[in-house]
């Protein structure tokens, strides 16, 4: 059995996969990687099924040892990783030999970096997923963020195995063999996290006056310190409260931009509440969800209205890119 030893956990590091979808009737939100695109690519680089569990590090990474060695890949934001003091390249597989130490520092770009390992990280599933749900203390590694001294098991095989064929398939050339491949520069550019978030109208969009919407779409908002995986809190152009009081709670979707009293919008994120009673002025499009996962406190963002068809087309384009042969380049 191969393991990862947590020498230092970093600021906030959790086990995440692509989340648990389908438990809304229990009040359980999907959770899962905040930047699912990066996790998927990290796994693909290793020949894992794209939904294998990896470590999601936030703003400041940890320090890890691999007593039996491991094949790894880093995706997402650059936390200045070094292996035995030597810089490690992002977006390409590398091998950590027995007892080598992988160390991360503070972020140089974005908010979250994914440490993916060939075989994935094995934890007990909770409702079909390895994802940590912090608020309820369920899933992941003991339902919490990693602590110093934690030991994680590396999976033997791909549990979520999917047929991986074509050029992106990583032939199993035996443990320790590193695939000579990396993410293509074009893909990296296309998937660059955005600061102008594209949105479609929220279900209560019609409740807001044109003047109010103008404030929303023309303001630059700052990401507040209290932002987390439940919600990204914004500071900026105040949206006047709606007359008529509280609305009846209803189901809320991922990326919903809700306007509470006080008029500072909150974007509902992966560990979102499943229902809520604040009006939603807009909803971030699916193709920009991964950008949300890379927002740091004090980042400045804006919203840009797009048509429903544009949102669909952009998502289809992103999925096509993620499935394409040119996603990675063999070296």
């Amino acid at each position, binding site marked *: 059995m191969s393991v990862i030893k947590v020498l230092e956990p970093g600021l906030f590091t959790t086990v995440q996969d692509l989340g648990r979808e389908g438990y809304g009737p229990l009040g359980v939100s999907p959770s899962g990687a905040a930047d699912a695109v990066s996790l998927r690519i990290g796994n693909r680089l290793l020949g894992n099924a794209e939904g294998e569990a990896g470590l999601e590090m936030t703003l400041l990474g940890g320090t890890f040892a691999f007593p039996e060695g491991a094949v790894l890949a880093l995706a997402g934001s650059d936390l200045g990783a070094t292996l035995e003091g030597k810089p490690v390249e992002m977006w390409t597989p590398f091998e950590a030999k027995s007892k080598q130490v992988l160390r991360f520092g503070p972020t140089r770009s974005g908010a979250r970096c994914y440490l993916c390992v060939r075989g994935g990280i094995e934890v007990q599933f909770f409702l079909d997923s390895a994802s940590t749900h912090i608020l309820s203390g369920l899933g992941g590694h003991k339902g919490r963020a990693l602590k110093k001294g934690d030991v994680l098991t590396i999976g033997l095989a791909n549990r979520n195995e999917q047929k991986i064929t074509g050029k992106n398939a990583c032939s199993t050339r035996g443990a320790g063999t590193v695939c000579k491949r990396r993410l293509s520069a074009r893909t990296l550019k296309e998937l660059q996290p955005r600061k102008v978030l594209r949105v479609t109208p929220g279900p209560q969009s019609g*409740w807001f006056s044109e003047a109010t919407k103008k404030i929303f779409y023309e303001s630059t908002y700052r990401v507040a310190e209290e932002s987390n995986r439940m919600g990204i809190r914004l500071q900026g152009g105040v949206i006047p409260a709606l007359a008529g009081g509280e609305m009846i709670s209803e189901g809320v979707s991922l990326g919903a931009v809700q306007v509470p009293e006080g008029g500072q919008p909150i974007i509902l994120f992966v560990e979102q509440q499943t*229902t809520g009673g604040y009006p939603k002025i807009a909803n971030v499009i699916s193709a920009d969800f991964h950008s949300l996962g890379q927002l740091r406190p004090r980042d400045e963002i804006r919203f840009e209205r797009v048509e429903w068809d544009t949102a669909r087309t952009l998502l289809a384009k992103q999925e096509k890119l993620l499935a394409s042969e040119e996603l990675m380049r063999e070296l």
Partner: protein
Amino acid sequence: METSRGEVARFQYSSDQSLLVYFNEQVEQKKTGGAKALPLQSRITLRANENVRRLLRLLELEPVPGVRNLHPAYCSLLVKFDAIRMRHEEVEGILRKYLERLKEVKLPEPRRVEIPVCYGAEFGPDLAEVCMLHGMTEARAIELHASVEYVVYFLGFVPGFAYLGELPEELVVPRLAAPRKRVPAGSVGIAGNQTGVYPFATPGGWRLLGCTPFKMFRADSNGLSLLSIGDRVRFTPISRERFATLESA
């Protein structure tokens, strides 16, 4: 079109991968302070909620390929779907066929669940204020809260949080102006005409009347959530001693 009105239900796009089905009992929102009247709002009614539960049941019995998640609420159901496979119009079309069959859906016989609650003092730090607001004794407030059989309208907010209604009118209070940063797990709160139990220590704005020693949501049990949508719930007042006994059990 983003919205359309049917006989029973109204559809509204929620995001590029979800839509809301509202069961109406529509009421025009009253004009307030000269502001523009808000559009049609649904009112919480048992009938609308039964329709939510019927549609949820039907979608659970006959899942629609491509539908990925369902978020029921008082009088609406959020349907999340795979936007690569389906368009809003297709989902709406399928759901309209389901809606035509709602009458034939039999809701399961409701389970009756009793939840023991230790009211007041440190268990219910807002009981005294609620009593003051209504000019009633604590004994009367407890009696009122425990007098009603509540319906679980839906689970939402966090895992296992059941929205229960309706609260006796004499007890209705607005939520706290400033929500607490941390409400202890098991706390029983009220807000508007609803009541509920916090399954986890979370932030919360409901006024706390008491606390239950019961675990509302467990990862290790088969049922996961103590309460399910449609259940009937009664609260039973218990003593501090009984609370301690049940908590350690």
